[in-house]
């Protein structure tokens, strides 16, 4: 209880602060003077029309692509000095197939010069914490799509990041696996209280996982609305019938369609 109370108290403090963000690809202006605050320990999902720069937003915040103007601060410091966990949409092209699954997960620790024994121990702890059983001796390409993305998520978590960014992480998985992975991700979030930002093209998923749904507009991108959704966790599939879920989803859909019509 106290932990939960602490977290809600900390919610008011912005953890990720974006100010005056500017980015264009060629002549195409994506972001211009974009501001955003993301509170500590919240799960934010990003939703919006196709090509509005959902993925671009987390790519900019994580330093994957450089921006033209503005500042991004994570935990009060420049984003470049923050530890970032990032899960790519395409696990096949982001995992290292020449390494075993275990070595993939350990890689962020290896980069930081953590001794081998300690690397192994931290992976063990991580697996135990989320009740994940995986044959980590296998090559990544021998695992199923869901297992590969699970490896990618563990790799993103192993270095105890300040924030976790996920770019449509489940869009390449079948529905059954998607449901399982959502629950795993929810468990991770509840256990760690990690500030999480997930880009989704699936409104149901966006609402299901979120504390706050960040609805973006068409280009040049602005925030249409930040929709709060504070249904208690752990949420299960049954909540899709919950009136609050339905209302939130409908509100988001309404705003989305308005935005499409503009």
């Amino acid at each position, binding site marked *: 209880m106290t932990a939960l109370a602490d977290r809600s108290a900390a919610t008011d403090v912005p953890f990720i602060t974006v100010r005056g963000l500017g980015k264009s690809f060629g002549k195409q202006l994506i972001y211009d003077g974009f501001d955003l605050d993301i509170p500590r320990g919240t799960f934010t999902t990003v939703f919006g029309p196709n090509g509005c720069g959902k993925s671009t937003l987390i790519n900019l915040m994580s330093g994957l692509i450089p921006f033209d103007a503005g500042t991004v601060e994570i935990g009060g410091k420049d984003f470049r000095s923050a530890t970032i966990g*990032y899960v790519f949409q395409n696990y096949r*092209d*982001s995992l*290292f197939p020449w390494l075993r699954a275990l070595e993939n997960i350990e890689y962020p620790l290896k980069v*930081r010069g953590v001794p081998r024994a300690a690397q192994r121990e931290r992976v063990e702890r991580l697996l135990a914490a989320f009740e994940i059983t995986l044959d980590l001796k296998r*090559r990544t390409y021998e695992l199923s799509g869901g297992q590969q993305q699970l490896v990618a998520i563990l*790799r993103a978590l192993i270095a105890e990041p300040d924030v976790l960014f996920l770019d449509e992480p489940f869009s390449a998985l079948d529905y059954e696996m998607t449901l399982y992975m959502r629950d795993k991700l929810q468990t991770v979030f509840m256990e760690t209280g990690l500030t999480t930002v997930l880009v989704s093209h699936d409104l149901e998923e966006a609402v299901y996982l979120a504390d706050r749904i960040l609805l973006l507009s068409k280009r040049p991108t602005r925030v249409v609305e930040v929709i709060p959704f504070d249904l208690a966790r752990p949420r299960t599939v049954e909540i899709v019938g919950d009136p609050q879920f339905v209302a939130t989803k409908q509100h988001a859909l309404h705003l989305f369609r308005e935005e499409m019509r503009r």
Partner: protein
Amino acid sequence: MSIAQSAPVARDAGVRRPVWPLVRSVLLPLAGPIAFLAVWQAICMAHVVRPVLLPTPFATFSFMFDALLHGTMLEDAFVTLSRVLFAFAIGAVLGIPLGVIFGSNERLYRSVEFLIDFFRSTPASALIPLFILFFGISDFNKVAIAGFGVFSVVVFNSAYGVMNARKSRILAAKVMGASQLQIFRDVMFFESLPQTMVGLRTGISTALVVVVVAEMFIGSDQGLGHRIIEGEQVLQITDMYASIIVAGLIGYALNMLFMIADKRLIHWSGH
């Protein structure tokens, strides 16, 4: 004969007999070579070609085994093979690092792109006279030309492999906090390996071709190339055919070796 007999039986039974996998895996690959030898034998028996120009397969192979076991053929084969491997080593040791350096610096690569494309398109054998001018007709000369041939394909393929490394994995390493050096060592190197292997495989074939040609035309007294041309000139035709076959077997073995190494080393390609 056994193929002709077993086929109707299988058809009668209406199901695939267990002998078929054996036929498919052992007999089918042998069909081509056996047909080849049969045609060769038929030409000899029909006296289409004068016997002095084309010995029978049996005469050729028995000469080959005899020359390998009791004559100097094994020594010649060994000399050729060691020249090929030496040339390959030189080309690879110089070519891979240079290719990786070129490939990781786009501007540098653009500035040498024409040279690389030019030299890898120039037949190395065309440079034989040039090399003779510089190195004389020494033993090292043959290795140097072949080494140059290997070098030019290896440089290109290594550079190409590095340049076309998948950006997503490089980005993944970057966001995990890897330094430039770590990205290079842990990601770019592995990303470029499949293409580098293509270069090495082409390189070893090039080396064999160039070494055999060089042995023919740069005064040498050893090696299969020398043996082949001498067989032709003094009309020891059986020796010529046998030497050609041995040269072919060396090429085939090297190719196989590289295919196995490729599968083992780059286990992830195709996934």
